[in-house]
């Protein structure tokens, strides 16, 4: 039996990057053949919610519970816009789509192994 892949986008309304992140996530999902997989959006509203969710900034994308861009130890949970660095070195408010695709493929492979 195929284990459903849970995809979550955690967001805070102090950042204008949510829609762009969602568009890039949907594009990445289509690229790996998962265009029909739903994305669960979860709004983080308070510092305590951020703390409880381990939310280090908006947007945060979790694929099967795995962050598409693992954060450093100096990043603390809180209501902030998250700083990503793309593979070409540019600073960005959204993760590199290649990192999203790579995480999707990795988690998919792991899920398939677990399913066997």
């Amino acid at each position, binding site marked *: 039996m195929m284990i459903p892949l849970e995809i979550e986008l955690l967001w805070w309304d*102090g950042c204008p990057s949510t829609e762009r992140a969602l568009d890039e996530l949907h594009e990445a999902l289509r690229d790996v053949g998962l265009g029909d997989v739903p994305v669960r959006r979860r709004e983080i509203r308070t510092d305590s919610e951020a703390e409880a969710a381990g939310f280090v900034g908006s947007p945060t994308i979790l694929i099967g519970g795995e962050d598409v861009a693992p954060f450093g130890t100096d990043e603390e949970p809180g209501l902030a816009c998250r700083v990503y660095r793309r593979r070409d070195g540019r600073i960005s*408010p959204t993760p590199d789509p290649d990192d999203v695709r790579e995480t999707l493929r990795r988690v998919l492979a792991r899920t398939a192994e677990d399913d066997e």
Partner: protein
Amino acid sequence: MSIAIGATAPEFELVDTAGASWSADGAEATATVIVFTCNHCPYALAWHDRIAQVARDYAERGVRFLAINANDADRYPRDSYQAMQARVAGEDWPMPYLHDATQSVAHAYGAKTTPDVFVLDSERRLRYRGAPDSDYGDATQNAAWLRDALDAVLSGSAPGRAETKPVGCSIKWKQ
């Protein structure tokens, strides 16, 4: 409430990371650019180099740049005065980085985001307000809206694009 295009911008006195005091009234400046910015916002960071380059390019023409960080440092320690000092010490800043600890200047200007750019003429009237250019992710944009505004002000005319929507992280107000 934001100040209107053409209105006289509020005066202020803020201290930079070296302890020097700065005001909005740059008596000898041909124009003054005030950029509300911060240390931790991806939009502010993405645009920073472009804005800094404009500051270098227009320095010879008498344009003065003032960067202001108004974020609540209690909730966002990465925007503390000490963090601002550390950042300036580690980078090549062509403009002073001022600390608006009480947030009174950000409130007076009606600043909303980081970055949020205000271009004042030599009489401290607001001539442009908004984003540096149309896309934080495209360095080739080269802060074109800011440059266009400065070129207009320096030639004594009104910028064709006087106001754009500031894009970035919300300023972190004290609660």
